[in-house]
C-alpha cells in the first residue's frame, strides 16, 4: 500500500480537489463549480476524485474561502490560507519561481519569491475588476461562452480600450463601446487587456516582477489574458497544465508534510452537514455566530467577537 494525500481548494466560483502521491504527482483531480454551496460541491468533487485501489489516504488539506467549514467537514489535518497554498504548490513544480500571478474567481494575488521563500505578496483589496467573476459576467453579457472567450480574443487585431478601474464603470464603458458597433472580438480582447492592466496597476505597484513568472488560477486558462500578460510584461509567462489546481496541490503538499499516521476515509456522502447562524444578543455587538452541525451534533462554532 502506498500513501496519498488529498487537497481541496474551495473558491468562490470553483471547487478543486486533487490527490497526490508521495512524489507529488497528481493521481486524480477535478474542477467543478461551487455554485454557492461549498458542502454540496465538495461532496460532488469527492465522488469524482477517488483514492486509487492500492493507495491509502494519509492526509487532507483544505484552502480557499470555505477552508474552515470544509476542513471541519472532512476532518482535515491542515487548513491553510490560499496565499501560502499557492506558493507551496508552485514551488513544488517550479522551485526557481520568482513571481506568481494568480487570478481567481473573486480575488487576485501576486506572490514574490526569493530563494524559495515568500518575500512579499499582495491581494486585491478594492474591487473585482481584475478577476474571473468580472470576465465571466461580461462574457454572459455579450453572449459568449466563457470557454471560447480567450480564443476569440486572439482573433482581434484592434482591442478596444475599456476603462476598467471599477467593474461598474467598466461595464458601462463596455455597453457604450458595443453600442458604437465594435466587433465582439475587439471588445473581448479589450476586456482581457483591461484585466491585465487593472491587475498590474492594482497589485504590482512598486514591486519588481522577476522572471520566471508563473501565472495561475482559473483565469490563467484564458488565452487572451495570457497573451496580454506576455505582451505587457515583455516576458514569457509560464502557465502549468495544472495551473487551475495549484492551490489544491499546495495544500495537499502541506498535508503531506504535516501528516501523521492517521488514515482518513472519504465517506462523508451520507453525513448531513448543516450550518446554522444565529445572532447572539449577549451584548450590542450582535455577533453572527455560525454553528456547524454534523448529523445534528454541534461540532464547532465561530464568529463570536468576545471570549464567551
Amino acid at each position, binding site marked *: 500500500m502506498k500513501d496519498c494525500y488529498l487537497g481541496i481548494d474551495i473558491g468562490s466560483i470553483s471547487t478543486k480537489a486533487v490527490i497526490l502521491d508521495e512524489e507529488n504527482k497528481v493521481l486524480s483531480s477535478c474542477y467543478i463549480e461551487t455554485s454557492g454551496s461549498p458542502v454540496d460541491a465538495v461532496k460532488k468533487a469527492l465522488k469524482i476524485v477517488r483514492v486509487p485501489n492500492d493507495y491509502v489516504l494519509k492526509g487532507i488539506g483544505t484552502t480557499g474561502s470555505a477552508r474552515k467549514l470544509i476542513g471541519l467537514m472532512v476532518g482535515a489535518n491542515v487548513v491553510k*490560507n490560499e*496565499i*501560502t497554498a499557492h506558493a507551496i504548490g508552485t514551488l513544488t513544480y517550479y522551485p526557481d519561481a520568482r513571481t506568481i500571478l494568480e487570478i481567481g474567481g473573486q480575488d487576485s494575488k501576486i506572490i514574490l519569491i526569493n530563494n524559495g521563500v*515568500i*518575500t512579499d505578496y499582495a491581494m486585491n*483589496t478594492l474591487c473585482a475588476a481584475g478577476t474571473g467573476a468580472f470576465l465571466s459576467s461580461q462574457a454572459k453579457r455579450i453572449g459568449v461562452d466563457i470557454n471560447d472567450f480567450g480564443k476569440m480574443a486572439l482573433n482581434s487585431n484592434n482591442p478596444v480600450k475599456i476603462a476598467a478601474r471599477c467593474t461598474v464603470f467598466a461595464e458601462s464603458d463596455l455597453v457604450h463601446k458595443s453600442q458604437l458597433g465594435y466587433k465582439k472580438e475587439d471588445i473581448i480582447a479589450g476586456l482581457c487587456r483591461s484585466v491585465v492592466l487593472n491587475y498590474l496597476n492594482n497589485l504590482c505597484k512598486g514591486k519588481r516582477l522577476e522572471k520566471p513568472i508563473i501565472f495561475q488560477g482559473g483565469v490563467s486558462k484564458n488565452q487572451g489574458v495570457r497573451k496580454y500578460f506576455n505582451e505587457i510584461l515583455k516576458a514569457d509567462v509560464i502557465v502549468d497544465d495544472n495551473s487551475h489546481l495549484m492551490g489544491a496541490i499546495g495544500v495537499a503538499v502541506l498535508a503531506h508534510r504535516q501528516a501523521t499516521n492517521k488514515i482518513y476515509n472519504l465517506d462523508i456522502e451520507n453525513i448531513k452537514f448543516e450550518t446554522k447562524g444565529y445572532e447572539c444578543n449577549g*451584548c*450590542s455587538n450582535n455577533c453572527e455566530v455560525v454553528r456547524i452541525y454534523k448529523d445534528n451534533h454541534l461540532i464547532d462554532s465561530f464568529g463570536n467577537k468576545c471570549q464567551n
Partner: protein
Amino acid sequence: MGNYGFIVHYFLSNVLKDEIIDPPKITSKTLELGSKYSPDFVCTPFKYTLGTLIESLECGSDILIQMGGGCRYGYYHELQSQILKDLGYKFKLINLINGGNHIKLKKLIKDYNLHIRYYRLPKYYLIAKTMVKYLDSIESYVRKNRCYEKEKGSFNNLEEKMINEFKSCHSYFKLRKIYQKYLKKFKSLQLIKPKQEIKVGIIGELYTIMEPYANYNLEQKLNDKGISLIRFTNVSYLLYEKKRKVKKFLKNLKLKYRMGADALDNIYHTKYLCENDYDGIIHIKSSFCTPEILIMPIIEDIASKYEVPILFFSMDMNTSETGFETRLEAFCDMLEMRKK
C-alpha cells in the same frame, strides 16, 4: 479607547462630586450609529467617536469630554458638536487638547454648577498620570511575552486583576506597590520560548492601533500565532514623550518638517525596527487617514532597503474580517518561512 477608559473615569469620579457616565464599550452598533451621521470620506476614528458620543448622550450625559489633536482630529469636536446639535441633543462638548483653555473651563464649571473638589485635584492628577504610565509598561510587557504563555489566558487574567486593584487604590505609594507586585507576578508567569522567536513591530495611526475593536484584536491574534510584538504608540508616549522625541527624530532622519500626527514617529520607528532585527512590520491606519497615507511609500522604501517585509492594513467599517485574517495568516506563514 483600549483600557484607558477606567483611568479617566477614576480621575473624574474622584475629583467631581457629579455623576460620571462611562460610555458603553465600542461595538458594531457604535460604528453603525457613527457612520450614519458622519460624512462618508472622513477617517474612521471620527465615526467611532461620534458613535460613542451619541451612545453616551442616550445614557443621559450632558457634558462630553474628548481628547484629540495633532491632525484634522483637532477640528473634529467642532464638527461633531454641530452634527449632534442638529440631531437635537443638548450637551456641552469639551476638547481637552484644542480649545480647552482655563477661562472656558471655568465658565463651563460655573454654567453647569459642577462640584469640583479642588483640594483633591493634585493628588488624583498624579495618581492618574502614574496609572497610565504603569498600565502602558505592563501592557507592553504583555504584548512582548503573551505569545509564549504556558497556560492560555494567564496574562489576560492577571491584567484584569491588576486593573481591578488599580481602580480601588487611593494612594500614590500604594499604587506603586501594586504595580511592583504585579510586575513580579507577570515575570514569574511560566513561558515556553520556541527556538526561533518571531518579533514584529506595529506602527500606524494612533486610534486604530490602540482600540482593539477598531483593529479586529490584531495584537491578540498575532500573539496567539506565537508572535512577539512591540508597539511604540501608547498614551504615555503621546502625552509625555512625543514632544521630546520628535526633535531627536528630525535630527536622526535629517528631515526639516513634520508631517502631522504620528507620521514622523512612524518613519523613525520603521527605521528602528529594521535596524534592530525585527522580522516584520505591520502598519495599520484607518481609511482616509491623510498623514499615514503620505508616509506609506516612504516606509515601504525603507523596509525594502533593509528587506524587512511590511504589511499594510486600512481599517474601515467596510473592511471584511475574513480578508483581514487571510492576509494576516499569510503574513505570519511568510515570516515563519523566512526564518527557516
